[in-house]
């Protein structure tokens, strides 16, 4: 009898832990815009430069660690929140030759597929739209749980000419190289 009574709290604990566990395993559905960031690297006269976008938000976010293939994400990045590393460049990027952000204020990424590469490592493939041009890109990323948040980190590169970024006098890749590397850290809550 005694043994039975002592089993009850154990059982309760196990059940509670089970629910607790389920809460944690719940899909991540909300992107934390303040904690997340998108940065980029480019090469100017063979000098490595860095920049970032200050404002991004998710119009759709769903990542279930138990079902990563079913994940879906759509992200919007405000082009005018760019910092390319120096004030003159930030002013220049507003122009039509670069991001033309009056006509195209938002760049979007919308996932079409998520593949599992390894334990905690995945690859998302989707449509990247910048300056009205849409191209498919794939980005490997890692996922880890940090407290009650999920952290997704990855990178990919694209060629700026594919999106008409840097036209006119800036077309020469000897000044600003064609390859732009994007690095992202997305922090999401359930």
């Amino acid at each position, binding site marked *: 009898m005694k043994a039975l009574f002592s089993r009850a709290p154990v059982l309760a604990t196990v059940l509670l832990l089970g629910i607790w566990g389920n809460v944690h395993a719940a899909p991540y559905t909300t992107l934390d815009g303040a904690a997340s960031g998108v940065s980029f690297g480019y090469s100017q*006269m063979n*000098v490595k*430069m860095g920049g970032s976008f200050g404002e991004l938000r998710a119009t759709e976010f769903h990542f279930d660690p138990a079902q990563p293939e079913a994940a879906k994400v759509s992200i919007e990045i405000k082009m005018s929140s760019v910092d390319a590393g*120096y004030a003159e460049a930030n002013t220049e990027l507003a122009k039509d030759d670069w991001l033309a952000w009056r006509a195209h204020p938002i760049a979007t990424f919308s996932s079409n597929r998520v593949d599992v590469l390894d334990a905690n490592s995945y690859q998302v493939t989707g449509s990247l739209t910048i300056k009205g041009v849409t191209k498919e890109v794939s980005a490997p990323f890692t996922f880890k749980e940090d407290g009650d948040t999920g952290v997704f980190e990855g990178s990919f590169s694209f060629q700026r000419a594919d999106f008409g970024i840097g036209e006119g006098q800036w077309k020469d890749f000897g*000044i600003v190289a064609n390859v732009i590397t994007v690095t992202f850290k997305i922090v999401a809550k359930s």
Partner: protein
Amino acid sequence: MNHHTVGLRDEKLSAYRAYTRSAIILHWLVALGMMATFAVGFYMAGLPLSPNKLQVYSWHKWAGMSLLALVMVRLAWRISHPVPEFPTSMDAMAQRAAHAGHWLLYFLMLAIPMSGWLMSSAQGFSVVWFGVLPLPDLVSKDAELGAALKQAHVILNYTLAGTVVGHVGAALYHHFVKKDSIMSRMLPLARRT
């Protein structure tokens, strides 16, 4: 053996009252290089952002780093080789002033490219020498420090411009007014005998 040879050459040089051929070449390379780089710096500062501006800035930095290396070679040569003495017609005060002027010039020749390199680092632009050799950032990116260093770079350059005017003025004064050999001993085509 080597030491003996150098000793002999020094004797001859002091007899000719001339700088070594290397000292003369280094002097004129640095002089022409600094004037050209100064002119480019003066021209580029007001340019609006364009591919041309980025190229001109890069060339200015590459030239500045080349001059820094050249000035260090020159300084090593200056320290390791005796310079011809001043003529006795120069009083102690004038000799001290000439020495002070020369060392101020050496200080500025080093401080100007160093301040440029520092300012470039602080503004977040690494220097990649001729687009090939990445030089280390001397300080991390800091906009305020970058602005202060830019100001230092400009002030040092105008100090150099003023000091060079004094330097050239003194040389011409010696040549045309005092009619001594001070200037001709640094001229590239000076008679060596």
